[in-house]
């Protein structure tokens, strides 16, 4: 049996990474004044570079932070939804989540992780996370999770 990288990471079912997309209109790509603001917190440059652009292309307003500390120091009231990396130097994603709860910030939290530990994900969902995605994730799944988590707002 051939073991692939996917197997190594986590037993996540195969997904279609690049399904045909309907392109957004220019109007859609310019975030509305009242658009949902998504904060991306990840120590990894690739994610910080790529994810905000993707989110913007779906009509969200996006901002990136290199650490949990930097994010917590920002104006938290501006963020409607936060995408948190789990394993980061300094404060970990779950620690940031706990701190948000302590501060009374009830914004939805979506965890992303390159370690892909299903047990940890279940635990985080139980502790109130809106979603937990293993990197590399299907962008549409992330968008769907953000939409679902912020639809109440």
């Amino acid at each position, binding site marked *: 049996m051939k073991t692939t*990288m996917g197997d*190594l990471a986590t037993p996540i079912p195969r997904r279609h990474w690049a399904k045909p997309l309907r392109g957004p209109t220019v109007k859609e790509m310019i975030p509305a004044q009242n658009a949902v603001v998504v904060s991306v917190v990840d120590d990894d440059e690739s994610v910080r570079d790529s994810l905000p652009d993707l989110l913007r*292309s779906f009509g969200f307003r996006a901002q990136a932070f290199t650490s949990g500390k930097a994010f917590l120091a920002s104006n938290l009231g501006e963020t409607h939804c936060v995408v948190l990396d789990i394993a980061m130097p300094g404060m970990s994603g779950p620690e940031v989540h706990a701190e948000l709860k302590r501060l009374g910030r009830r914004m939805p939290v979506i965890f992303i992780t390159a370690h892909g530990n299903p047990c940890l994900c279940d635990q985080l969902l139980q502790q109130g996370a809106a979603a937990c995605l293993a990197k590399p994730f299907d962008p549409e799944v992330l968008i769907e999770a953000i939409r679902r988590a912020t639809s109440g707002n």
Partner: protein
Amino acid sequence: MATPQVTHPTQAPVGSHHRLDVRNGSRGDVDDALLERELNAIAAIDGIPGLVAILAPDGAIETLNRQIVDYCGGGSELLQHWQSNDVIHPDDLRQTRETFQRAVSAGTPFQIEQRVRRHDGLYRWFDNRGVPVRAANGQVVRWYILLTDIDDRKRAETLLAGEKQLLELIASSAPLPQVLGALCQVVEKAASDCYCDIHPIDWSGPTIQFSIAPSLPESYTAPIAGTPLRGDLVPCGIAATENVQVISENFDTDPRWCASPVRAHVREHGLCAVWSTPICTKRGDVLGTLCIYQRQPARPLPLHQDIIARATHIASIAIERLRAEEALAKVRTELTHVSRVMSLGALAASIAHEVNQPLSGIVTNANTCLRMLAAAPPNIDGALETARRTIRDGNRASEVIVRLRALFQRKDFAADVVNVNQAACEVVALSAQDLGRRGITLVTDLDENLPEVFGDRVQLQQVILNLLLNAADALNAVDRASRRIVLSTTIQDDCVQLSVCDNGTGLSPEELTKVFDAFYTTKNDGMGIGLSVSQSIIERHQGRLWASTNADGGATFSFALPSQLF
């Protein structure tokens, strides 16, 4: 001490008389005073607390005291022939004879410890001292012999010496059969005329695991291994299951085992009395039984019970300690195995993380790029930027692989002279338990003239362990009884070559070309890293690692390292 002042040697009488009858008129001319003196002398030697014999200068018996006659159950006729009958224990006879003859010919005192047979056939230890009596001209006219019973002291000494030797054996982690065999010999030496047999018990049956009895033939001990632990089959069955001593004075006629097939087995080997005592831990767990046999019907004497109690105690220490060591070795092997798997697992997780990060960027960027191009109008500048980032992340992923290889070719390479045979033996010792439990026979065929190589011993051992465990995994599908691994070393084309050959499932030609690729595995639970790492290590040693298929199925993995000498 009163000494008879007899100046003329007298002849020992024939028949059952054990001493001169000075009153039967054979020497009627003896005056009353002399008779009186001789009677006094006889009364005196009869009162001595020991066995006394008075001998002529040539060693012929003249007078015996009552104690020696009562002890041996016979008079001078029996004792006169001590050199040819079994009054002296056969094991002590030669030394006694030599000592005695030397003393008689030199006319000097002697002292020897020997076993003397009692009237009921039991041998006891005696301290035998003899002194010559000389006439005025210096001629030896008499020998006075005094035998003192030292049996209790001697047995205590024997047991003590035996116990010391046994405890040393146990402390040096000698194999259990060797320890138990030595214990049997100590018991047999301490309690003469018996056979000792020790049966460790395998409670998974429960059965008698095996029988250790160095003084009994293999035809007796071999069939005992695996005997079910049933009370109606063997006394040990009752002894072990009920934790009680079981005494059968005569096993052949004992109604408790009249239907047991073991009865004939015991009889055919000339054994009669069977005493079985449980060997148990301080907590009362029965580890085995200690069996004493005698060739005639017998019950254990206090002496035997004392020896049995000491022997079962030592046996319990030996068995318990060895079982604890076995358990420890098993845990150690499992730990090694677990840590090996864990380190590979941890490595895989770290690789996964390192690769998933740029992969995530690639997927996100590529998606964003597509959306920007699909937009109306297309966002070309944005698409170019995301495409550029896709390339950057792709390069990052490939750098991870480069770093991974560098990791395997560690910079902290501990180069030293390595004896590959020795390194292999250490790995074999480490994995022997694990392989044994999996029913694998490991054969080593090491070339004694193997030159040393230059390299990192621990890394090479990781390779050997990896090859061994791979071979073991390849045997999972093979019938337990025929699982076999041959580890051999040889000199081939000026290189030290080590091969691990299994009779497992083997490799197809396609598999042969791929086995060394990272993440390629034929196992359901494998990571596909071991051989790739192994190859990196061997290449770092300027060596070569390859696989081949065996003519009779199975695979051989070999590595060759340049020898230090060439």
